[in-house]
């Protein structure tokens, strides 16, 4: 499928909700509302024209005013790849996509622990990397200061 066809398939299903954005390294990237994310992801996986069966990467960007969750998807059958973005308020919560891709389980645990996000209906919302007795907040947030972390001056 071409870039336009992929975008149109999503736009037909979710009219007025898909906003294209620039992104290097994928065929097409767009933004959706966070309330729709589970529906959009399920559609991306289950639609026979799209078949995005691989959640290649899921991550979070802290833009200080809000957080942005990014899903990088790929289809082995159709050989196309997209990125989906959704914006979430800080300390906000959103649906887990673990029912769609099991791979999201660990990615979401990582995001929840390091960025302080909450994923609803996550099957296993334990911390993943940090020590059990960690009490110094969410280290991947912008502006986080820790004992061993010194912000270098920028030239």
């Amino acid at each position, binding site marked *: 499928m071409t870039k336009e066809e992929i975008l149109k398939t999503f736009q037909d299903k979710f009219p007025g909700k898909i906003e294209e954005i620039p*992104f290097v390294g994928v065929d097409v990237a767009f933004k959706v509302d966070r309330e729709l994310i589970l529906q959009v992801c399920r559609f991306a996986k289950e639609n026979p024209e799209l078949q995005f069966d*691989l959640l*290649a990467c899921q991550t979070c960007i802290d833009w200080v005013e809000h957080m942005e969750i990014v899903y990088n998807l790929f289809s*082995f059958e159709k*050989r196309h790849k997209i990125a989906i973005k959704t914006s979430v308020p800080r300390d906000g919560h959103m649906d887990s996509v673990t029912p769609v891709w099991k791979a999201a389980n660990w990615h979401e645990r990582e995001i929840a622990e390091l960025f302080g996000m909450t994923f609803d209906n996550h099957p296993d919302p334990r911390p*993943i990397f*940090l020590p059990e007795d960690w009490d110094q907040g969410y*280290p991947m947030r912008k502006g986080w200061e820790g004992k061993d*972390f010194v912000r270098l001056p*920028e030239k």
Partner: protein
Amino acid sequence: MSDYPRSSLLTPLLTVEKADTEEFIVNMGPQHPSTHGVCRLLLKMDGEVVVDVVPIVGYLHRALEKIAENRTYLQFIPYTDRIDYVTAMICNHGLCMAVEKLAQIEVPERAEYIRVIMDELNRIASHLIWLGTFALDIGAITPFLYCFREREHILDLFEMVCGQRMTFNYMRVGGVSRDLPPEFLPKAKEFVEYFKPKVDEYEAILTQNPIFLGRTKGVGILDRKVAIDYSVTGPNLRATGLKWDLRKEEPYSVYDRFDFDIPTGTKSDSWDRYIVRIQEMRQANRIVEQALQSIPEGEIKTKTKPVFKPPQGEAYVRIESTRGEMGFYIVSEGEKTIPYRVKIRSASFSNLAALPEMVRGWKIADLVVIFASLDVIMPDVDR
């Protein structure tokens, strides 16, 4: 379960009249010789049988992504060596490629050839470590010694090129840091010829060895659908029969100029994961051979500005690492020397997440084999 039944299953040597079984929890690791690093496996056991496993990771978490937000693009390259220290060249390559895509920098042809040679030599070195330790976990000590003997030659080649044997810091945005020394090409060609029969040697010891077959055939089957659901990539995915390799399907660098095959498995058991990697070593050697013959003269680096500031934007660029898809997701604000955000998508992280699906119902001794066959590198998981 297995094509190669174990003797104890055929004729029970001991029987008990009254057997009470009780499930119990046991820890394997974090310090355990067969976890290849510091990984803790929390096991729910029924006698010798694994009922469930919970991998507990994070012992090597160094917050490399946080460090990246505090370093310039160039300063972060040595940190990529520490993501997957066994294939540091490919990690270097991944980061540099992502930044090049973002800043639209062309890489000179010679540099691309050098990168491919380094990547593939590093792939062989990594598979050699894997093969050695995999065989060691099963109880074969000889292959370990053989593998490290050959790996030594590759490390010598790396040392010749960049002065380092493990953490290379060799590639740069726009090329590589220095040209190949004149003695490299003859030595590398010598190695290619030297290595060809060595793979047969490993195969002679292992491939049809009845003990090896008994321990690996049919053990730890990972269904293709489950593998994709967990985002398992690389040799572990190819062992399920899916012919998918980024070097072939999405050729980056100059991989489209070389003739090589993508080995795949059929049963997606531990033996298939073994044979796929064995054949990958041969294919990597083929690529190195072709690249050494056709490497052009010329520049080794595109000049970038001394204070390097990529334009505003974001990129997700992936590369076929030894363990699967390695992705670098970079967000640049523009007019800044440091990235706003770097996400490292490491293959081992996703591959390890699929472990519980493979080990349920197998004995604890098989768990060791299955874990080893996944080729997980803990710093790659924890980052």
